[in-house]
């Protein structure tokens, strides 16, 4: 028998032996810690309450509000059309179904931005894109949209414009005066599509 056969056998054996020591990729996929830190440092994920209010009034169909507070708090009060995904159900398939849908922008919110931000970090680690955090959370929402404060007389004009918008939004969201119209109009059906990463070629057996 040729000596080379022994060498071949040995190489193949050790190659196969090596596979025992390499770990397999994690499922679900996670992004590397380096990427996560980089993304965490970007402030682009924050959106203001004004922006969210504007989108809600415009009935932007690509907007999905996700309430990450516990279900008990969600049941007491939440934003229009918001769905509840408590932070510990982020890892379940049901909870994850809301994220990463093509064309959808998901805005996370909680009482303050802290919990929503943490949820965002977890989602980022799971490589979900197009998620945002409502800065200031519901407390800020109450402060700015539900109970807007008149800016001082010395404030620039933009502050007054913002105040005007907030006044209008206040009427819209509290249902004062235009309650009926707002109610029926804000019933939006959001159509989800299954998250697809890539094209699946047709075929098979």
């Amino acid at each position, binding site marked *: 028998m040729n000596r080379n056969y022994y060498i*071949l056998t040995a190489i193949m054996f050790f190659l196969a032996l090596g596979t025992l020591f390499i770990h397999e990729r994690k499922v679900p996929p996670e992004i590397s810690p380096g990427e996560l830190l980089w993304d965490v440092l970007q402030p682009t994920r924050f959106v203001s309450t004004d922006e969210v209010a504007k989108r809600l009034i415009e009935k932007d169909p690509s907007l999905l509000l996700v309430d990450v507070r516990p279900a008990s708090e969600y049941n007491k009060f939440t934003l229009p059309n918001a769905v509840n995904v408590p932070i510990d159900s982020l890892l379940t398939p049901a909870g994850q179904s809301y994220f990463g849908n093509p064309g959808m922008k998901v805005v996370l919110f909680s009482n303050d931005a802290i919990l929503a931000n943490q949820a965002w970090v977890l989602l980022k680690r799971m490589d979900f894109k197009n998620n945002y955090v409502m800065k200031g959370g519901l407390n800020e929402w109450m402060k700015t949209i539900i109970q807007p404060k008149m800016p001082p007389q010395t404030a620039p004009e933009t502050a007054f414009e913002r105040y005007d918008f907030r006044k209008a939004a206040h009427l819209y969201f509290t249902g004062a005066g235009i309650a009926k119209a707002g109610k029926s109009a804000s019933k939006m059906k959001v159509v989800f599509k299954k998250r697809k990463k890539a094209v699946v*070629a*047709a*075929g098979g*057996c």
Partner: protein
Amino acid sequence: METLPKQKKNKTKYINPYLGGVLMGIVMLISIFISGRELGISGAIRDSVVATANVISPTAAKKSSYYGKFLKNGHHPMDNWLDYEVLGAILGGLLSGILFKRVRKPFVERGPNVSRGRRLTAALIGGILFGFGTRLGRGCTSGAALSGASTFAFGGVLVMFILFGAAFAVAYFFRKLWI
């Protein structure tokens, strides 16, 4: 591809089987890396059957529960990855045959104790059985057993062992054909 050493007395040599195996494994890895799938043959023959049915009677073929599956998307049934791959396989076989001087006038290769007629009948029957089996087994030796097993698919390993096991089990009854 490497050239073979000088052939002795006009005898054609096959490459070392392990060389063939290692290269085939690498080809499969390249195939997976590029297309995410491995090799297969029988699916292309199925496609040719579907295409024929479609030519003979397009409406009946579309209505048929089996042909219809492959005619849904409006593509020509022969226009997919597998068919190009099989076309390549045929060309590749021809290339190798020319390179190693194995292309000959048509002839029947048979065992020492079998007549031409029996060999051809056996080949036809074997083909019919194999063809029928590929559809039930979701692929042939290359598609199901080879590619399936190398991607750790349970079905592939199952087909591989049962296919070779069954062949080995019945080999004794057909020994006249081969030895």
